[in-house]
């Protein structure tokens, strides 16, 4: 059955090359629901009573003379739960987003098929194979952006990531002489350390961990929004899937902890994650381009997951997985909302937008809810995830990580408000804009559903990840449906919710006690001046956070991107130097030939 799903995905991808936009999106949307059935079926295995569709859990596929071992594990089931549902909804969204079919759908389907494949792979070759397919199919989607930096940086970083992963896998293969992941076990010493390190480096490219994030702002800000939603929501999780696989399921974290007696190397991952969260948040605050802001926000939010993996206690891992789940949905919603705004207005700069909340109220609601989850407002599931991570950091007394995490959490308010204010509130610049098309709205609201469910019942989330954790030998933490309990404290979402509703009562009485009158937007107090429309300096979102810019930015500006550019230029200089070997004079070439002959001869005879 698995091979049928794969075959249908691939055939659909090929068909969508040739059909029109609407048919393509319908095909893509419906075909991509198939893997979800597989998800439901596998749920049986983990104690959920569901209907069986008769999909096998194991499958071997032969490609180019090599057998790929595919199958679902509890871990990949959990990750599939967060990644796979994104796809049909993004297809639903793209139904009205694109004007014509110009190569988006086929590669999107390839990316989806390979994502499915990565989650299913049970041996290193198929993991790497699907990883690479995912890389190139997403590269081709980036290629549609026609942006130089995006194309070059994405391809270079993808290849770098692939090679780093390949290097790690190769070492594991060399140590065990088996490609099956389940056979890996006898890795230790320097080889194990290098393998795990290079795997983490490789995966951290896709999961945009800080020094290797340099591609993300370009790619996120220039590609098609539906793809970016999938990239940020879905594909970035694959990096963490890989990390989890090698760190916890395959005991990589023990290797990192025990490699040197005094230094726990996994702490480094946590530090990198926290720096990533902090610095990216600071940079996100400074962005005026909506997509760049969301890109840096993604980098920051994904940094939390790395912190969780780095800390490595059950509490932290639970928090990290929770955060991954949340991020998949809220960031997808945010990117889709940004796309809907751009679809209607054609603008990306926050300072050129404004006042869309009353024009596009449903889009605003979706974005608002996603931002609540992003900023970890209590009672949203975003808070539960971050709370677990904070608790974990305090529990382990990681005094360097905890403040950075928390201040990044505060910074999230700042850039969230920049989105809310600059795009949806403030000056009403687009009086004639209509609400986004129905399919877009539907996609965004359905994507919000999981977040709403886990608002009240964070305990369900912990139940869902229980099989994944227990399969990796990680105990799950004490919880009820509403409350999570750690050794340090307790968080009861129901108490918060009920009290909030109760506290709404006096507020509502005050609200209802006096009638109010809604005035027009122009009726604003500006020292008696009438409102001047379309004066950029009157829009406060213009140069928002300017005071902070002068203080903070100098410390972050020459960031990773700067150094990667230096490296790129350095290779360019090297290249220009090396090209001089080819002088254009055939006499020189003749001399090279003679020298080569003599050298080889000399080497062979006298060595």
């Amino acid at each position, binding site marked *: 059955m698995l091979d049928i799903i794969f075959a249908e995905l691939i055939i659909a991808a090929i068909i969508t090359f040739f059909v029109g936009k609407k048919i393509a999106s319908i095909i893509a949307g419906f075909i991509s629901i198939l893997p979800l059935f597989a998800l439901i079926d596998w749920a049986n295995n983990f104690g959920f009573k569901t209907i069986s569709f008769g999909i096998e859990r194991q499958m071997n596929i032969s490609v180019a003379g090599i057998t790929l071992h595919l199958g679902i594990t509890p871990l990949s089931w959990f990750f599939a739960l967060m990644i796979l549902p994104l796809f049909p909804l993004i297809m639903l969204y793209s139904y009205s987003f694109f004007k014509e079919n110009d190569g988006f759908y086929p590669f999107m389907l390839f990316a989806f098929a390979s994502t499915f494949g990565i989650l299913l792979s049970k041996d290193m070759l198929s993991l790497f194979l699907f990883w690479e397919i995912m890389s190139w199919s997403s590269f081709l989607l980036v290629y549609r952006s026609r942006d130089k930096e995006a194309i070059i940086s994405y391809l270079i970083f993808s290849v770098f990531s692939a090679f780093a992963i390949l290097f790690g896998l190769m070492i594991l293969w060399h140590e065990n002489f088996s490609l099956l992941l389940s056979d890996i076990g006898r890795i230790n010493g320097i080889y194990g350390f290098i393998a795990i390190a290079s795997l983490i480096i490789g995966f951290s490219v896709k999961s945009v961990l800080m020094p290797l994030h340099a591609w993300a702002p370009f790619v996120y800000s220039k590609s098609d929004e539906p793809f970016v939603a999938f990239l940020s929501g879905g594909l970035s999780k694959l990096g963490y899937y890989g990390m989890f696989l090698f760190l916890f399921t395959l005991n990589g974290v023990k290797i990192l902890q025990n490699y040197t007696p005094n230094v726990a190397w996994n702490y480094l991952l946590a530090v990198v994650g926290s720096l990533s969260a902090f610095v990216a948040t600071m940079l996100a605050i400074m962005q005026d381009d909506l997509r760049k802001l969301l890109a840096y926000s993604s980098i920051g939010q994904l940094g939390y997951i790395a912190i969780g993996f780095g800390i490595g206690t059950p509490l932290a891992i639970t928090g990290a997985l929770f955060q991954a789940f949340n991020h998949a949905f809220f960031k997808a919603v945010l990117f889709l909302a940004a796309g809907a705004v751009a679809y209607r207005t054609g603008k990306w700069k926050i300072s050129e937008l404004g006042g869309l909340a009353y024009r596009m109220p449903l889009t605003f609601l979706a974005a608002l809810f996603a931002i609540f989850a992003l900023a970890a407002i209590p009672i949203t599931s975003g808070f539960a995830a971050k709370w677990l991570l904070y608790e974990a950091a305090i529990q382990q007394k990681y005094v360097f990580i905890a403040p950075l995490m928390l201040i990044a959490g505060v910074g999230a308010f700042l850039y969230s408000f920049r989105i809310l204010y600059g795009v949806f509130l403030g000056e009403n610049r687009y009086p004639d804009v209509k609400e986004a098309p129905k399919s877009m709205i539907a996609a965004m609201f359905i994507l919000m559903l999981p977040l709403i469910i886990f608002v009240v019942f964070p305990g369900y989330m912990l139940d869902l990840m229980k099989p994944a954790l227990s399969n990796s030998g990680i105990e799950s933490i004490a919880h009820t449906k509403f409350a999570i309990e750690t050794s340090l*404290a307790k968080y009861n979402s129901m108490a918060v919710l009920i009290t909030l509703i109760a506290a709404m009562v006096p507020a509502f009485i005050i609200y209802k006690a006096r009638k109010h009158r809604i005035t027009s937007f122009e009726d604003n107090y500006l020292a008696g001046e009438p409102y001047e429309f379309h004066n950029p300096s009157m829009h406060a979102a213009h140069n928002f*956070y300017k005071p902070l810019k002068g203080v903070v930015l100098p410390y972050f500006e020459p960031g990773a991107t700067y150094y990667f550019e230096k490296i790129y230029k350095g290779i360019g200089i090297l290249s220009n130097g090396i090209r001089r070997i080819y002088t254009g004079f055939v006499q020189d070439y003749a001399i090279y030939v003679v020298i080569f002959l003599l050298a080889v001869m000399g080497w062979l005879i006298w060595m």
Partner: protein
Amino acid sequence: MDVMGIAIKVALLTAYAVIGTCVGLLFMGIGRKIIARVHNRVGPPFYQNFIDVAKLLSKKTNISHGWIFDLALLFSISGILLTLLFLPIGGVQLLSMEGDAFLVLYLLAIPALGFALGAGASGNPNAGVGVMRALVMMLSYELPFIITLIALMIYYDTTSLATIVRMQSINGVKSWAITMPPFMLAAFAADMALQGMLMEQPFDIPVAPHEIASGPMVEFGGKYLGSLMLYKAIALVAETTLFVDLFLGGGVVAHGNFAFVINFIVWLALIFLLFILSILIAASFPRFRIEQAFGFYWKYEAIIAAISLIWVYILVIK
């Protein structure tokens, strides 16, 4: 839980919400009086703020800018009440066992975010600038505050405020956190952060009336402004209480049957003292610019807080 228990709990919570509101308004009035005395003026009567709120709520016209504007009213009062009820007040735990300090930290953001949403929805550029300043201020003062918070957390090995209060009240005043040298530093940093939280001078940059026409509140009038005044009053109590819970043992000095009366009075006295301190600082300093405030918190205060954190860390590791 039985019905009686729930009813008692609800009554207690309601009582504390009302007490918090009244105490806050009273303190604000006293604060105005004190500032007036510092300025060598007579000043308004101490109950002036009750009158102000009553007047604002009884205004005939209330101008709104749409439903998002109304969120400011709803979220500011409900959010701050929620925060207040998750704090242990004078040794009474209220709901503080159901959450912890991180929750309180984030709950404090709910009213702020609602307020900011309303201000933004008004479309007034001054409001936008004001909210921007408020958020930058938040980013500024949260860093030293968070660091001191973490110092306390790792020292007591808990994140629950109720536990922190309980552990500080074992030996009465002697076991208060502020009696320990590292926490003296931390308390200093946290007090400065409190000054920013209360938006008193020299950190009243977000609402600077002379520059940006009282910033976020520029379009607020009538019941909206009244609710914001209530919010500010409760926030005053909640934020000072947070400080008291963290460093001053929650004001718990006595144990026993009727100890809660003593503890309540001590708590009231402590938050009053903190508020007076803050008012006196406010009365004697001019306003910072926003980047100066940011630099102040992230350079000096954060370093002081970090020293205390490192000190505590060394103590704990040993």
